[in-house]
């Protein structure tokens, strides 16, 4: 190509002008252009075509461009809104690859320790158990089913039903313990159906068996006691429902006349 007997193609002249040739070839082309007037003239013609096009292109499209202020302000507002979206923590996390790797390494170490110490850990307090002795009044105010004493104390009294797994999960989620070990809790009725309590999430809460003192077994004893008192006619049903839903531990102390669980 560097010979004066063979000229450069328009394609190659364009590639050279655009800096798209490999370095070695670019040198050869530059050397050829230094020698060959014909190719230099042709290169000039190509550049003239480009210049004319660019003048036309810019000269006619630039007047259409809007003022940048409005679109800029709109974009700023929109990305500020996106930045404040709840997924922010996840996105920040994903931006730090190093932290991701460090986090993964820590997780593996934690997993290893957990597997190693699991038997001892479980025997003491189970897996991921958050002791819950008191229902949260805003989540579990207690709801009754509108039954009367005769229905409760009849030949077929209402019994505690097994709470469906899906409802149990919702209860765990409400209490912020969605990762909890289900067997460590009794998703309990605050007002038991045996006392007229309803199958309603507002009447359910996750009571842990592992609570040292005031646990699910203690409350079961209170429920039995209140049912007996109501059916024996020694306690009004409404009072029993109110007492157990407002503060079941105080009710236990009151009806068992003790400050400590008897079990």
């Amino acid at each position, binding site marked *: 190509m560097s010979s004066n007997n063979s000229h450069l193609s*328009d*394609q190659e002249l*364009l*590639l050279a*002008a*655009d*800096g*798209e040739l490999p370095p070695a070839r670019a040198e050869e082309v530059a050397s050829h252009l230094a020698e060959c007037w014909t190719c230099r003239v042709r290169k000039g*013609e*190509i*550049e*003239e*075509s*480009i*210049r*004319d*096009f*660019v*003048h*036309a*292109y*810019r*000269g*006619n*499209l*630039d*007047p*259409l*461009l*809007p003022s*940048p202020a409005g*679109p*800029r302000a*709109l*974009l*700023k507002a*929109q*990305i*500020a809104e*996106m*930045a*404040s979206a709840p997924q*922010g*923590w996840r*996105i*920040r996390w*994903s*931006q*730090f*690859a190093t932290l991701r790797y460090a986090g993964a390494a820590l997780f593996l170490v934690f997993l290893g320790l957990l597997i190693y110490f699991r038997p001892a850990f479980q025997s003491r307090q189970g897996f991921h158990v958050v002791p819950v002795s008191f229902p949260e009044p805003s989540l579990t105010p207690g709801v009754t089913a509108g039954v009367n004493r005769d229905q409760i104390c009849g030949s077929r009294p209402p019994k505690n039903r097994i709470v469906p797994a899906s409802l149990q999960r919702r209860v765990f989620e409400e209490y912020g313990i969605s990762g909890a070990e289900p067997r460590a809790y009794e998703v309990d009725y605050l007002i038991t159906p045996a006392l007229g309590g309803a199958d309603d999430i507002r009447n359910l809460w996750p009571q842990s068996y592992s609570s040292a003192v005031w646990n699910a077994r203690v409350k079961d004893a209170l429920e039995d006691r209140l049912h007996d008192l109501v059916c024996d006619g020694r306690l009004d049903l409404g009072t029993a429902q109110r007492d157990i839903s407002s503060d079941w531990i105080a009710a236990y102390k009151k009806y068992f006349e003790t400050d400590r669980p008897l079990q």
Partner: protein
Amino acid sequence: MFKDRAIPDLAATTVSSAEGASPKPTPLEEEVVALFDQMQDRLLRYLFSTGVSVHDGEEIVQEVFLALFQHLQRGKSRRNLRAWVFQVAHNLSVKRYLAKRRDRQNLVEPGDAPAEDTFVDRAPNPEDQLASHQNHARLQSVFRALPEQDRRCLSLRAEGLTYREIGKVLDMSLGAVALSLGRSLARFARVEER
């Protein structure tokens, strides 16, 4: 040549972090707005040249930079953001064009003017704009006669994209980009020789 080297290497720009809700813009927000300032005119000119209306062009550019913000926010690749931005703008404009063509096909009787012609003719693209300027009239006719892909190549090159970047945006090989540009310029040269 019209390779514009004024655009900084966007891939080299750094982001420290994206903070949550805050009255003060995060570094990432500031970076995206800075890129918008650098790229907005280039994107709009390219879109106008391909037949996109001013209104649609502005909407597409907003969409592009919101997508860019999400892209960076998710920690995705920062390699050659200039080509990435043009590619998203191109894809969005094609998507809009196809949607409009579908709408028109649902409205017009068979045998009416092809949607593609309407797409080109309605737009404030260079050929329409060039008509207002006598010296550019011949370029208008040449540009109008170019295949759509050649017009896009030429416009992207005029906006400073390298052959590799054009290939990425339009999904073409480097050789096809070079051939397209060479073909278009040869047509301009022939007209000028007359």
